[in-house]
């Protein structure tokens, strides 16, 4: 189908662009690291309370990092004026969104993977046994963040004060993801770990709702 081939082409372009310079990945990873370190200074690391806050802090760090990471998503096209050529290159404008969305999810997951070992070390939490379930939560949460982030990035790129506007628009939208992901991650990393399937299902629902909305309305974000 044209959508898939278009998306595949655009996705490889996104990935190639990023992996050539790797600037987005490196800066975002370092940023999450800095945020985690700052959280340690703000709280009292190593204590039992710090362990309780750790999952929430992890997801906060991911949220902050994403609101930086998605700045360049559509801004890059605007600056180089490549958006019109992109639109001409595809038959379905949703392909542009889908490609960026998948790329953003991958970048987010990569930075999370890079940062997880540090998180485990800083907060003295063993992640190995819980890795499958944790990966699922990270995946569903990251997809939700990426869907909303890509949509908002398209909006903020066309407005003034976009650096401030993107987090302003994005973070309230992502409240459900923060709440549920933090809670599910928390119960996963607990002394007696429990997999909250209802929470994982909820994250899935969030992803589906916003993906559907993006699919229906995506073409309008990029109108001339």
């Amino acid at each position, binding site marked *: 189908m044209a959508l898939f081939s278009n998306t595949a082409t655009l996705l490889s372009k996104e990935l190639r662009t990023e992996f050539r310079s790797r600037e987005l990945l490196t800066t975002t990873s370092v940023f999450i690291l800095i945020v985690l370190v700052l959280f340690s200074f703000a709280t009292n690391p190593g204590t039992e309370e710090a362990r309780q806050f750790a999952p929430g802090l992890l997801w906060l760090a991911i949220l902050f990092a994403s609101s930086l990471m998605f700045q360049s998503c559509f801004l890059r096209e605007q600056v180089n004026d490549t958006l019109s050529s992109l639109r001409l290159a595809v038959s379905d404008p949703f392909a542009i969104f889908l490609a960026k969305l998948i790329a953003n999810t991958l970048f987010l997951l990569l930075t999370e993977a890079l940062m997880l070992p540090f998180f485990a070390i800083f907060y003295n939490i063993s992640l190995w046994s819980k890795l499958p379930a944790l990966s699922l939560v990270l995946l569903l949460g990251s997809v939700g963040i990426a869907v909303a982030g890509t949509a908002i990035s398209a909006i903020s790129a066309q*407005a003034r004060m976009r650096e401030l506007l993107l987090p302003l628009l994005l973070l309230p939208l992502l409240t459900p993801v923060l*709440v549920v992901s933090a809670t599910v991650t928390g119960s996963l990393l607990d002394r007696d770990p429990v997999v909250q399937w209802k929470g994982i299902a909820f994250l899935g629902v969030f992803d589906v709702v916003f993906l559907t909305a993006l699919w229906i*309305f995506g073409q309008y974000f990029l109108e001339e």
Partner: protein
Amino acid sequence: MTKRILLGVVATALIIAAAYANFYIAPTERTMGVIQRIFYFHAATAWAGEMVFFVCFVANLLYVWKREQKYDWLGVTCAEVGLACITIVLITGPIWAKPVWGIYWTWDARLTSTFVLWLLYVSYLLLRTLIEEPGRRALLSALFGIFAFLDVPLVFFSIRWWRTQHPAPVIMGGQGSGLDPTMKKVFFFNVLVMHIFCLFLIVERYVLEKLRHDVDLLQREAEVQ
């Protein structure tokens, strides 16, 4: 014009009637006493505000679909009126809560989602000020408005299912069940009154938006001369 004045007069009369009902017809609540009378104004405003935001959502959808300016005007109008309502709800709630339950605020599902709703529509209005071109502004804010409205039930349920601790004080009118019949009548009268008053505000604000557009047109004509 006369229809607008009539609406304003009717709304004012109804507000006075509601105030009378709130203080003289509704019986005093047994446990909370006089302070419970805030509930009629507070909860009715909340319901009206939510209805206004729903109209905003519909206006946003209609704009994206039909691209007629009037839907954009209706959208921004409802966003402002709704925001006024929710601001009042967020202020009168704590005024009521503090003497009764000893706390100004709690992070239960209703309060949190109301606050997030407030933040989202403040962002909606802020977004509009940051886009100059009217067509683009209308489209992008309508799209954001749609996403924002879809998000609110998700916020509500995420808090309700994963953040409710011990029985939190029912601050915002969960008293629909087991409400005294007179109180119920007074409450629903308030709901009607607040809807009519919001309708009046929407009409006035919509006229303002249309006027703004007329001024823009005239200014552009004058520049051409």
